[in-house]
């Protein structure tokens, strides 16, 4: 589904990703962990097409298509979804209208008619329950005045509404209390299938107790320095990242 080959990415002339490789197949959940500044959020942003990031080398293929050729909205329409680490508040834009517009623009991209009101409302109802979203929250302006947890739940709500093929969760667990974390994890577990894939970017192992990954990768200094299964996450929790930094130095030399 997703193939990242020797990816180099800079922002404002500073190289952040220095040869990233990753292969994600349908049905898989990949966790990317790593210390601050290792390039985790850059990876998420560059996949979604954030304009400030410049790809200086390598390639990203999504279902065989070169992602660099696609604008953010085209990537979304092709099935890529980024759950933002810091969802943006947009006063004056209703959550529901925003979702309806997004659903319909993605449908238009696929040559489909706009969704009929009944199906949309049905889907809305179903997905609201999934993330324990009240009508009051759903009807408010987009993220306006939402608590940290509400914003993150809104990201998962949008994820559920848009049904992407590949979802990237950028530190969705940060700032969540245990109840919100459970809701988010439950949502993801309900949505996962053999046809979609998730990349979960996180600092901590905590979320991975609820969403069990197939693979865990450690990102350090712009590269994946170690990959393994869910046990690797536990090991990281125990030992921290320092021992990997030393290993990375060895690899680099």
């Amino acid at each position: 589904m997703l193939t990242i080959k020797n990816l180099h990415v800079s922002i404002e002339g500073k190289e952040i990703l220095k040869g990233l490789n990753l292969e994600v197949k349908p049905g898989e959940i990949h966790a990317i962990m790593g210390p601050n500044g290792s390039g985790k959020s850059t990876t998420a942003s560059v996949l979604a097409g954030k304009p400030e990031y410049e790809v200086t080398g390598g390639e990203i293929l999504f279902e065989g298509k070169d992602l660099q050729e696609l604008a953010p909205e085209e990537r979304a329409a092709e099935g890529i979804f980024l759950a933002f680490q810091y969802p943006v508040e947009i006063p004056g834009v209703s959550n529901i209208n925003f979702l309806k517009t997004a659903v319909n623009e993605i449908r238009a991209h696929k040559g489909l008619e706009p969704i009929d009101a009944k199906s949309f409302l049905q889907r809305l109802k179903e997905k609201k329950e999934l993330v324990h979203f009240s009508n009051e929250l759903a009807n408010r302006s987009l993220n306006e005045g939402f608590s940290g947890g509400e914003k993150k739940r809104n990201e998962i709500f949008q994820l559920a509404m848009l049904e992407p093929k590949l979802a990237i969760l950028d530190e969705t667990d940060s700032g969540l209390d245990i109840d919100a974390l459970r809701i988010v994890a439950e949502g993801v577990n309900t949505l996962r299938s053999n046809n979609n894939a998730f990349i979960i970017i996180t600092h901590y192992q905590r979320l991975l107790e609820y969403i069990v990954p197939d693979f865990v990768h450690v990102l350090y200094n712009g590269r994946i320095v170690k990959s393994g299964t869910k046990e690797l996450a536990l090991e990281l929790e125990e030992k921290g990242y320092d021992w990997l930094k030393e290993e990375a130095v060895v690899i680099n030399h």
Partner: protein
Amino acid sequence: MEEFENSKLAESYFTDFLDKPLQNDENPHLLQLREEGKLSFLKTGIPDKKSEEWKYTPIRKYIDTLPVAGNGNLAGHIIGNGKKTLKPLKEEDGITLVIIDGQWIPSLSSPNTEENLEIIPFHEAETNAPALLGRIGKYAAMDMAFTALNTALFPDGLIIRVKENSQSSKPLHLVHYTLGTDSPVQHPRLYVDIGKGASATLVESFMANNGSSVTFNNSVTEIAVGENARLQHYYIHTESSSEVNLQHAHIHQEAGSNYSNFNFAFPGASLIRHDVHVGLSGSGAATNLYGFSLAAAGQLIDNHTRIDHLVPDCTSNELYKTIAKDEATVVFNGKVIVHPDAQRTSGFQRNNNIMLSDTATIYTKPQLEIYADDVKCSHGATLGQFDRDALFYLTARGIRDKTAKEILAHAFVTEIIEKIPDEHIREYINGLIADYFIFLS
């Protein structure tokens, strides 16, 4: 040389009258007023760039493009467009007065079904409403060149009066067409009197004349809002590109009164200039000035507001927003003067601007003069583009860049739309906004 000749000719619309006797009015008050207007205009002349109030609006440039004669009778052309254009609001939503070149055309207008509403042309006022006729000119600031000019030259004007303690249930909708029938330069005049305790809604739409030669509209409106009276006043601009529209409103507010002005300008008119002057003259009066402009092509939209807090305990609240694209220019000058007696004044002002092109220009100038010591005043102005993070957030959900900008533009204007109390007018404005926002990018 030819250009020079043209500009001389164009200027004659503004100077010819100076050495001729004025229209001999039936009424001595009006005649005296015209003399005053003439004298004032003699002093000021046509303002140029040296005048602080016209620094960014080169009015002579617009005058120079005026044709040598009127357009003749185009009324048929406008009427041919059908009733829909003539009456933009639904019949049941308001009483529509069609006004062509400042003249009320009763045959094209709705009948006045409101008992408490009087519509009186000046020429009838001498017998029907002499007291009101005597008040014309009372609130107009004659030191403003174009107000003085209008005062010297207005033909028959219109008095609108809402009787004391009455609720005018339907909005009164003035639908203005500037056709430049006799002359490309027109000087419409209005006097609005909202009686003590009364409540009313006045909508003024400036419609496209679809003409090819330039017209120059120079309106003056005086509004008196009586004790504890309320007036909602709307300006809606959808003129065509050959139109220049100067609007001077002088509003006088008595104690406990409430005046709200909503000013919407859309792409079209080459120049829209508003001077909205509010005098808060009775304690407890409140004024709200809201505006939204979408300026496009080579348009110039200039809003000059002035609020005089003359007595204690009044409130003023001002919010103007702009989206400028293409080569458009937008000017906002918001003057608030808190006079020495006006203790416990609350005055808020904000001006937010979004530029969608590198070639658009925005001038914004808050001007607070405070001579009282116990006041709460604030002002703020912003200038920028659509928020990049917000744009990325929307596009990352599959929303095309163009749609995302439309969404953000709607969000930007929502703050003003929400303040429109009348549901039908809100719907009408929302419709206009949706139509114009299609061409945002």
